[in-house]
């Protein structure tokens, strides 16, 4: 009894109307140090997998695009590719190239968004403002090509909705040049700014073995030296023609996760340029039957946060029998509960954003409990606490 009274549990989360993936974490602390962490998800569980079973494949394409508000195109590409595989339809190289282009543009905006959020959690708001300002460049590119900033609606089952004109290519290339210059600047900052490195270096260290055991994916895994990138391991859409150089870092700490994501941006720019300069010819869409032949298919794509896995089963009808979506954040959550242990409470905001869990908001209610007394903190307070702690 005595022991339990001495235990502090700091619950963080769960809810904020603007947050895409609200999660509830309970960190048990001993003074400043975190001794255990638990997760409760599901605050935005919308039953999409169940809903998919009663909707046609076309309706589902639009629904799956809305699983995520940041990486929407990866979902629709994973779903469309899977259904095309079941239907035995092959899309033209031009369709694949346009899909790949958007996958990479999406990665650019996602990584820049993350850079801003992570900088903000570290108390470096100038970097946050800079990276979000620059992110507008790629958002404008999205809008100029697809008409939409977030849900681009690029895909059809069996094709893409629009072509790319020479003017759009020119505009995109110009935007990419600008972004590349800016990225060099960001790389310099996150690797040389001592104040910032104080928050990231040796924080949240995860060894290669840990990352493998915890099934980390995406940049989180690659920053621990794990060679895991679906674009390289199992190239899909146009990646066989435009191969990706996997960015790895052995650091395993938060700093390495910054470096990996920023270096990946250079790869994104290079791939986008290659695609835009040699856009292959081909039909924009092919006919796909409304009834999809019976069968099961797995479809894997590399989302900005890591491997996204789709399992689609058809019974030969107009609606799928089962669609399983395993998003990369789910894999990376489990790294938090292990890596958090032994760190200071003040490191938690940075540690959480380190995996890029679409942690795009603050102001989340935090209650600090001790036995019968409780004290309420907001996420913003916790962030300030972290910033103050490291001053």
């Amino acid at each position: 009894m005595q022991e339990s009274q001495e235990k502090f549990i700091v619950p963080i989360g769960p809810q904020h109307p603007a947050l895409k993936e609200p999660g509830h974490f309970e960190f048990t602390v001993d003074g400043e140090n975190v001794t255990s962490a638990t997760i409760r998800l599901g605050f935005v569980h919308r039953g999409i997998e169940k809903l998919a079973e009663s909707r046609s494949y076309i309706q589902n394409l639009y629904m799956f695009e809305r699983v995520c508000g940041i990486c929407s195109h990866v979902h629709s590409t994973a779903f469309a590719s899977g259904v095309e595989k079941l239907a035995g339809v092959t899309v033209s190289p031009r369709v694949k190239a346009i899909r790949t282009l958007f996958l990479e543009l999406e990665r650019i905006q996602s990584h820049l968004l993350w850079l801003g959020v992570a900088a903000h959690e570290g108390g470096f708001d100038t970097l946050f403002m800079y990276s979000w300002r620059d992110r507008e460049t790629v958002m404008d590119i999205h809008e100029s090509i697809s008409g939409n900033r977030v849900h681009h609606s690029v895909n059809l089952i069996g094709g893409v909705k629009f072509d790319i004109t020479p003017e759009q290519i020119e505009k995109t290339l110009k935007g990419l040049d600008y972004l590349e210059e800016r990225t060099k600047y960001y790389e310099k900052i996150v690797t040389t700014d001592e104040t910032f490195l104080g928050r990231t270096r040796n924080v949240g260290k995860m060894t290669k073995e840990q990352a493998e055991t915890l099934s980390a994916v995406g940049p989180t895994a690659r920053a621990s030296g794990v060679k895991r990138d679906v674009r390289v391991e199992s190239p899909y859409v146009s990646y066989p023609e435009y191969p990706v150089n996997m960015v790895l870092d052995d650091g395993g700490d938060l700093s390495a996760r910054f470096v990996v994501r920023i270096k990946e941006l250079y790869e994104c720019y290079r791939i986008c340029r290659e695609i835009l300069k040699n856009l292959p010819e081909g039909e924009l869409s092919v006919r796909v039957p409304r009834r999809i032949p019976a069968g099961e298919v797995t479809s894997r794509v590399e989302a900005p946060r890591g491997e996204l896995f789709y399992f689609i089963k058809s019974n030969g009808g107009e609606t799928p029998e089962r669609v399983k979506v395993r998003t990369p954040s789910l894999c990376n959550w489990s790294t938090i509960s292990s890596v958090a242990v032994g760190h200071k409470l003040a490191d938690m905001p940075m540690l959480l954003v380190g995996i890029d869990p679409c942690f795009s908001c603050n102001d989340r209610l935090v209650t600090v409990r001790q036995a019968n007394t409780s004290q309420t903190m907001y996420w913003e307070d916790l962030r300030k606490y972290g910033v103050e702690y490291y001053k």
Partner: protein
Amino acid sequence: MEYETFIHDAESILKKWGKDIQHPEPNRLDVYVERTDLLAATQAIIDAHWGYLSALSGLDCPAPKAADDQASTEGHLEALYHFCRMAAVTTLRVKVPYNDAHIPSICSIIPSATLYERELMELFGIIVDDTPVPDRLVLADEWPEGVYPLRKSFTGLDAPEKAAQES
């Protein structure tokens, strides 16, 4: 192709436990195992360093209607363990009957499976014995016990007023 070698390797690792082995796609291998063999098969995959657990999903296969020409005549639940290595995907499939929907937990071998197992328990009602944290993960706190939304028999909860009247 590289994945052919991997699929071949996976097949030789799992042959011992495979009740039924299928190749649904060139880069995929489906191995049906008994639940008693699940841990041994998983351990063998890990010991051989054959890829990593990418996803765990459930599947509800209710008894087909008379007109359906499916081979199975009795409904069952299935747990699918997808392991990926480069482009190759090996799936361990475990069938369990509705009235005895128990499977062993693989968390002692792959600790990160805990989230998937919790999801499986909540959404399909497959009871994962000895899973480290059996707490609710994704469904709401007020969600009724014993209602599993991803089962085909689930078509929606009663409207709140109706449920209140009945109780």
